[in-house]
């Protein structure tokens, strides 16, 4: 059980955070640190790619919500890339589909970042 985090620069002022593995109460601090570091550096447009995430719980959602709150204070955005039905289901039942932009591809997520 682990999470891999890869951060890369994208066109414009946008950064992509690739996550791979499971985001739970054990691994979410690592994700929180990666997102927090970007925001501390002044990056307010984020695309978080969840394509290789097999599992996410409410602590992971809490990290994403925290990141979104911070970037919105600067007029930024957090868009998610997610096609896994199990992951999308968690966003559906918590109503977070209305808060985040959730896209089928990275290109689509970056177009509105």
């Amino acid at each position, binding site marked *: 059980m682990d999470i891999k985090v890869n951060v890369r620069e994208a066109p414009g002022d946008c950064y992509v955070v690739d996550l791979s593995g499971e985001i*739970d109460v054990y691994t979410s601090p690592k994700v929180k640190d990666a997102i927090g570091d970007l925001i501390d550096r002044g990056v307010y447009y984020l695309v978080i790619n969840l394509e290789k995430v097999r599992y996410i719980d*409410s602590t992971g959602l809490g990290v994403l919500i925290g990141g979104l709150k911070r970037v919105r204070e600067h007029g930024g955005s957090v868009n998610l890339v997610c096609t896994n039905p199990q992951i999308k289901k968690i966003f559906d039942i918590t109503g977070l589909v209305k808060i985040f932009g959730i896209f089928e591809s990275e290109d689509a997520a970056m177009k509105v970042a």
Partner: protein
Amino acid sequence: MTQSVEHSNLELVELRIPARPEWVALARLAAATVANRIHFSLEDIEDVKIAVAEACAAVIQHDAHGEFIDLTCEALEDALRVRVRDSGRHGIPAAGGVVNFEEARTAGLGIFVIRSLMDEVTYDVDARSGTDLTMVKRLQTPSDV
């Protein structure tokens, strides 16, 4: 001489893990294994895994949790019953409560997720006696789908 070890339909798994984040995956795996034994669908097994993880996370995020989490998974004829309790609460003061607002909101989200994914949920969170959460997920029959 051949002797079957499966004398009863009842399948009961009890697991005690340290109340720390790195052990929650083991609790998820245990519950998923029992759910698989009674032929839950893959989607329902995922629901059970998330619900168990949320219950464990709720314990761990409580500022006055015990040393251990006790997980009991009981395979019933047509359902899975899971109980999550914290234990080892020696010398914990009565005045508990969650440390900060952000954690409280996340913990509330966890209970909401559990209620959404499981068919029956009862829980009691008390600073002195700890967390005691029981949840049931019923086996879907073909006519339910």
